[in-house]
């Protein structure tokens, strides 16, 4: 009898890791992108100071084009950035899509290492690493390089997001730790708990149509005319 119990416990312990591993599926390409993001490449000290037109010609001469872009996207989450701050999730940069849209590698790959053996299109973090490196005072850090490159281009082209959340997911703190509610909390308690931190958002919400709307709008005509009241008049948890 005791042997049986020990045996079952043994089987259980053996199976447990297998069970939990099977629960979380991870996308292989995402894992690969994350893996790549974690790499820190050696710092390129000297670069070839071409003008932009030269650079474009060089790239064409080297026969580099959209066909050579194999990676669909990168996760721009280098440890170089992470060690300074971590407010947002790293951006998933659709490399292939941007390459196809611009059809000009030199827009981003604006310089190349002086070393002739180096790749024609080396990665950003080879040249842009730490900010305010006293030896290279005008070489901006990786985070700033990303932001300036992306935002300036988006602004000039008139497309692509220029606000934080257009590219980033916010690094939302784990709300399991923050929310403190008793078991079986009623709606009032839940709303009050949300408002504990999100009072500005609540104020904003009160000025929106979600709250102020008081009857059928032109947009609901023909749909649900029977909704005659907005949340502001009938809601139960009206704080």
């Amino acid at each position, binding site marked *: 009898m005791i042997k049986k119990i020990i045996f079952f416990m043994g089987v259980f312990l053996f199976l447990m890791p297998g069970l939990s591993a099977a629960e979380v599926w991870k996308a292989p390409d995402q894992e690969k992108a994350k893996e790549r993001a974690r790499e820190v490449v050696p710092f390129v000290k000297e670069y070839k100071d071409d003008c932009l037109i030269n650079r474009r010609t060089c790239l064409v001469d080297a026969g580099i084009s959209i066909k050579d872009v194999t990676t669909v996207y990168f996760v721009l989450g280098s440890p170089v950035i992470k060690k300074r701050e971590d407010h947002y999730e790293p951006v998933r940069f659709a490399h292939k899509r941007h390459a196809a849209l611009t059809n000009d590698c030199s827009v981003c790959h604006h310089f190349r290492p002086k070393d002739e053996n180096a790749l024609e299109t080396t990665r950003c973090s080879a040249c842009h690493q730490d900010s305010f490196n006293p030896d290279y005072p005008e070489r901006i850090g990786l985070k*700033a390089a990303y932001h300036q490159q992306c*935002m300036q281009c988006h602004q000039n082209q008139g497309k692509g997001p220029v606000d934080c959340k257009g590219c980033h997911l*916010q690094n939302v703190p784990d709300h399991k730790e923050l929310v403190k509610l008793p078991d079986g909390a009623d709606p009032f308690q839940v709303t009050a708990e949300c408002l504990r931190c999100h009072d500005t958002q609540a104020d904003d919400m009160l000025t929106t149509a979600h709250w102020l709307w008081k009857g059928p709008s032109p947009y609901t005509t023909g749909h649900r005319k029977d909704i005659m009241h907005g949340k502001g008049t009938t809601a139960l948890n009206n704080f």
Partner: protein
Amino acid sequence: MKLTRRTFFKFMGAAGSTVVGRASSANAWESKAPPDSYGCLVDLSRCVGCRKCEEACSTVNGLPAPERANCQCTIFEKKRRPDDTAYTVVNRYFTGKLDTFDKPLPTFAKVQCMHCQDAACVSACIVGALTKDETGAVHYDVSKCIGCRYCMVACPFEIPAYEYDDPITPRVMKCTFCYDRIKKEGGIPGCVTICPTEALTFGKRETVLKIAHDRLRENPGKYIQHVYGEKEVGGTSWMYISAVPFEKVNLPVLPETPSPKLSETIQHSLFSYLWSPIALFGVLGAVMFTSKKHTDHSNRKGGD
């Protein structure tokens, strides 16, 4: 009123010797800016108005979280100033510049204490609670402060704010240049650490100034050809370069003379070694002595 001849001459002698001593030590006003101090460059053309600097500042300095930290929608509709709850704020200005689609292009400008090389507030502070230290930071020592607010009167940038609602222990509140961080090797002010576009560049003032001039030279037509803060009021630790005129982003036009120069020159030329009060004392003593002798004399004549 007993004024004997001997005491009178004693005083006169002291006064005379002081005047002579004073004349030899007469010297012109000199800047008290620390050598090799730190500086910071704000490149307004790079700032995107994310207000992360405000957030970092409040975290680093233990201030209340900035107003609407996560929402840029309405905050820029009013012009804000640094106050007793925020050492730095970012404002948005439409200066008439248009982007490639003829839409008005905003310019964002961060405001904070400029940490002047010869700061008016440092000169003004009655107790020396404000000092320019070797890092370049204008440092506030609350334990000396008496709350006279003369620093606020003196500041040409209108920076120091005051805790007007504290009845007993109000403090002057202004950017510290993250003094505790930058005095350590490799330390960087909170706002500079977080800036996503490196609109803020921190380093030795000389280096930063050189970067500023390099940027002006290497990007012809992009910037106004002026480094704001290089010479304003004798130079400041925080400097600005911009693509739009500085007065349009609320940076005041200021003379190149350091603010304290005139008042310090007057004070020191009049009062060093207290020569003028002592001389005045001597002169008045002499007048008093002679007028007394005169009246004594006439009294005696008239009285007898």
